[in-house]
């Protein structure tokens, strides 16, 4: 029973709605945190560094960068949510303990948290897209196709973060995950520079990781270039990561909270 794949029902909804309700109360600082930093990266690197670099893959650097920043910000937002915020709800506020005294189960809570992480990525990507559009670095309305991709990225990284949270003894543990997983992904997934010039090992390795594919899909959507022919296949990679992490996180939380 404890290794069974989580049962999927609509009972994730009250968990998700509770988090949305809290977010609506605290949305000011949350929004600034979620899109302020990526925006600074976009402006400083896009214009500052872009002036030296000129064009990348035939695009002005800021145009190239904007699509990477949207994906990286989705990854960061969902990771923070699945690590710090979820840990607070689990171990500090005992919110999950309260939920477990009701008809909700661990499976419902984990699914609700994962979908919430995806939602937060979605919410924080909207102002970035808007600003990018105002700066004129978005090609046309097909950029709205970015939103479902951002949601998938959020779900994937939210689920992965919950695996780490299930193992964490304190907040300090998360530093390992950020330094060893999130930051390297940030650097080798085609956010700041194309992977073409990288050694084969890095290039192929990156293709096995969840962020690079999202960038490959988001970039053409935002810049008006043709989509890769295997678009949907590309998104299977982050979705597989999400499903695996969902299962693993649920098993680990069952062991931690119910044994």
């Amino acid at each position, binding site marked *: 029973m404890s290794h069974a794949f989580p049962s999927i029902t609509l009972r994730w909804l009250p968990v998700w709605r509770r988090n949305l*309700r809290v977010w609506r109360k605290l949305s000011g600082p949350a929004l600034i945190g979620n899109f302020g930093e990526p925006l600074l990266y976009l402006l400083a690197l896009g214009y500052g560094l872009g002036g030296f670099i000129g064009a990348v893959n035939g695009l002005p650097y800021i145009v190239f960068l904007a699509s990477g920043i949207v994906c990286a910000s989705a990854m960061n937002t969902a990771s923070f949510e699945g690590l710090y915020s979820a840990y607070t709800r689990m171990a500090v506020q*005992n919110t999950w303990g309260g939920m477990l*005294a009701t008809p909700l189960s661990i499976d419902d809570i984990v699914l609700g948290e994962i979908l919430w992480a995806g939602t937060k990525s979605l919410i924080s990507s909207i102002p970035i897209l808007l600003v990018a559009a105002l700066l004129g670095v978005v090609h046309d309305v097909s950029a709205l196709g970015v939103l479902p991709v951002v949601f998938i990225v959020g779900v994937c990284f939210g689920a992965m973060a919950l695996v780490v949270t299930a193992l964490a003894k304190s907040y300090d543990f998360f530093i390992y995950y950020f330094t060893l997983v999130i930051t390297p992904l940030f650097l080798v997934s085609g956010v700041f520079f194309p992977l073409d010039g990288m050694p084969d090992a890095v290039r192929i390795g990156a293709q096995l990781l969840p962020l690079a594919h999202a960038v490959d899909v988001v970039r053409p959507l935002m810049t008006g270039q043709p989509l890769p022919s295997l678009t949907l296949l590309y998104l299977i990679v982050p979705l597989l990561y999400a499903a695996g992490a969902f299962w693993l996180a649920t098993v680990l939380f069952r062991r931690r909270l*119910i044994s």
Partner: protein
Amino acid sequence: MRHDPKTLHDLVVEAHGLTKRYGAQTVVDNLDLSVRRGECFGLLGPNGAGKTTTLRMLMGATLPSAGELNVLGYTIPQQARQMHLRLGVVPQQDNLDPDFTVMENLSTYASYFGLRGAALDARITELLAFANLEAKAHAGIGTLSGGMKRRLTLARALINDPDLLILDEPTTGLDPQARQLIWQRLRTLLVQGKSLILTTHYMEEAERLCDRLVILDSGRILVSGSPADLVQQHIEPHVVEIHGRGMEEWFNSIGQQFVQRSEYAGETLFCYLADERPLLDALRHCPELHFMHRRANLEDVFIKLTGKELRE
């Protein structure tokens, strides 16, 4: 099934051989429990006796290592979800949502049961009155006193109109007024026909509220029964506590003959007696000795059974 349906119906909890082991350590050891519908049942015991683990197993929050467990007619842990629809829980540790107001805490918790709409609004109004929190409906949790938070936690546990309420140390840390109010509310719930299971470290709380109780130690039941029966069965009816200079010599030469049983706790001597009068008469001739006479209570039983040394 080895019980006829009628008895089963009258019991809200039935446990046979309930056991919880963590590695080599047995925390709950072969426990048999039955809680009747409409009664207040107490789980008492020193720290580490297995009270909280037992409660967690009843709630389906900890998986038993062995034994059979039935709560409200459901097999636990397999049918825990259905059982939770009929159960209310007041946890030991406060877990109210700090970002929500009093009312939002109630409505959010209700959503976990799938409750919504006009019936829920009416229920929340009713519970705010029950918890004396009408004036605080829109206040943040940070502005509430300890007693108010406990009352809100109690109101929250009642949101689904449960048949059985589990309370883990419901009045720990509260001032006397706040405790009195919680006790009143728990009695109201008993009058309404709800069943209560509570743990407490306050013997007078158990004596006041519980119809029946068990005293646990090292995961086993030492005794069970009503508070009055336990006091009657396990301890002499009178207690005289004596301290003061020369007490020991006086007791060895004079006092001892009047006393059935006695025990030292630091500088104080506890004397347990069937008839207190001869000892009190003798003590009145010793102005240097301080003494206090009282009826024996549940705390005396508890100390007699679990010993005087600290459990930490």
